[in-house]
């Protein structure tokens, strides 16, 4: 065997995966070739070090906030950075009062979907819990509506409408196929998104 041929076969030799004939040829070559013996020793050394490398290396800082900002909403999930839409309060005070009051009423109307009778009892209980939390958050949001810019309220209402539409679709599909776990997950994810959105809205402070 030539040194080039040995070099190609050394990994298999070191791993013990070459057949007996090749192994014998390699051994014979290695006995007489110091360079290839050095190569084999180096490969074994690196292999041992590679095997000890950390399987996980944490980034220097938490990357999730930056990743989260780049995620595009899909399906039932609607995520919204409400602070992007927060505007100075004073400039739109009159419009705000009228618009936010009407939108809040609309939001309240849209955001309290009637319970569905055909869903599993466990799922109905979870929906009841989410619905109760939604009512609380809507009250909190309603109490703060004068602090929110009309654009913010409009955006909020628009996105709640999207979520409610997704909730209605998931619920209707589940009534057709109550055992479908994916639909169930979709429904619950939509509820979580709705509560998350309302929490952001309720906690939103007007910009100074």
């Amino acid at each position, binding site marked *: 065997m030539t040194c080039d041929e040995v*070099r*190609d076969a050394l*990994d298999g030799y*070191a*791993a*013990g*995966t070459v057949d007996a004939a090749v192994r014998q040829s390699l051994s014979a070559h290695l006995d007489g070739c110091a360079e290839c013996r050095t190569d084999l020793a*180096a*490969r*074994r*050394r*690196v*292999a*041992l*070090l*590679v*095997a*000890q*490398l*950390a*399987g*996980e*290396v*944490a*980034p*220097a*800082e938490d*990357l*999730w906030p*930056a*990743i*989260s900002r*780049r*995620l*595009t*909403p*899909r*399906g*039932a*999930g*609607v*995520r919204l950075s409400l602070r992007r839409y927060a505007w100075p309060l004073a400039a739109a005070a009159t419009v705000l009062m009228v618009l936010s009051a009407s939108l809040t009423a609309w939001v309240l109307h849209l955001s309290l979907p009637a319970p569905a009778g055909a869903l599993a009892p466990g799922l109905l209980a979870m929906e009841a819990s989410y619905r109760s939390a939604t009512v609380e958050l809507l009250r909190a949001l309603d109490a703060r509506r004068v602090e929110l810019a009309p654009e913010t309220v409009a955006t909020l209402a628009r996105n709640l409408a999207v979520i409610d539409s997704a909730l209605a679709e998931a619920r209707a599909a589940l009534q057709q196929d109550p055992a479908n*776990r*994916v639909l169930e*997950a*979709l429904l*619950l*994810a*939509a509820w*979580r*998104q709705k509560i*998350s959105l309302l929490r952001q809205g309720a906690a939103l402070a007007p910009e100074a």
Partner: protein
Amino acid sequence: MTGTAALARETLPLSLARGTVRPAAPALPEAVRLAQAGDDGAFEQLYRSTVGRVHALCLRLTGDPVQAAERTQDVFVRAWEQLPTFRGESAFGSWLHRIAVNVVFAEGRAAGRRERRVAVSDPATLTERPGASPAPGATMDLERAIAGLPPGARQVFVLYDVEGYGHAEIANLMGIAEGTSKAQLFRARRLLREALDR
């Protein structure tokens, strides 16, 4: 399985032998389903459980902590976008690993294959998982040596010797000939040997 990765599996306990990606944790499938439905909270859970592996791969392929952090972000954004098409034919971790490799090489092509050599000057910035390495000094030397390799040699070494890819697959991923992959591996090993001997 090829090269050093294969050798490692032959010569070390299974817990130390490094596969391409470890099997997904049992909790992942439910989180995957929820994330597919649009639940970003579930996706964050997936991120938390896999970021160390993804970042390790990106860091070793790029040799640059800043680029590694950027590529890691790209990987998870891409995974979020492609998650609806994930059908579970492979483990989630393996699927993510493939995305990571593609993201790093796509970026490399887009950037005209940067030829920067940025060594990891402070090994302390690499946060190893406690207990993952019985010889931290030696493996830190290897991490530093890998980071200091020329890009092509480094990427072939990481894919072949660390991740267990074959030359044909590496050639396909990197857009090079198989012979080039073999030559780069030989070069990488020679440079590593020299670096470790210093």
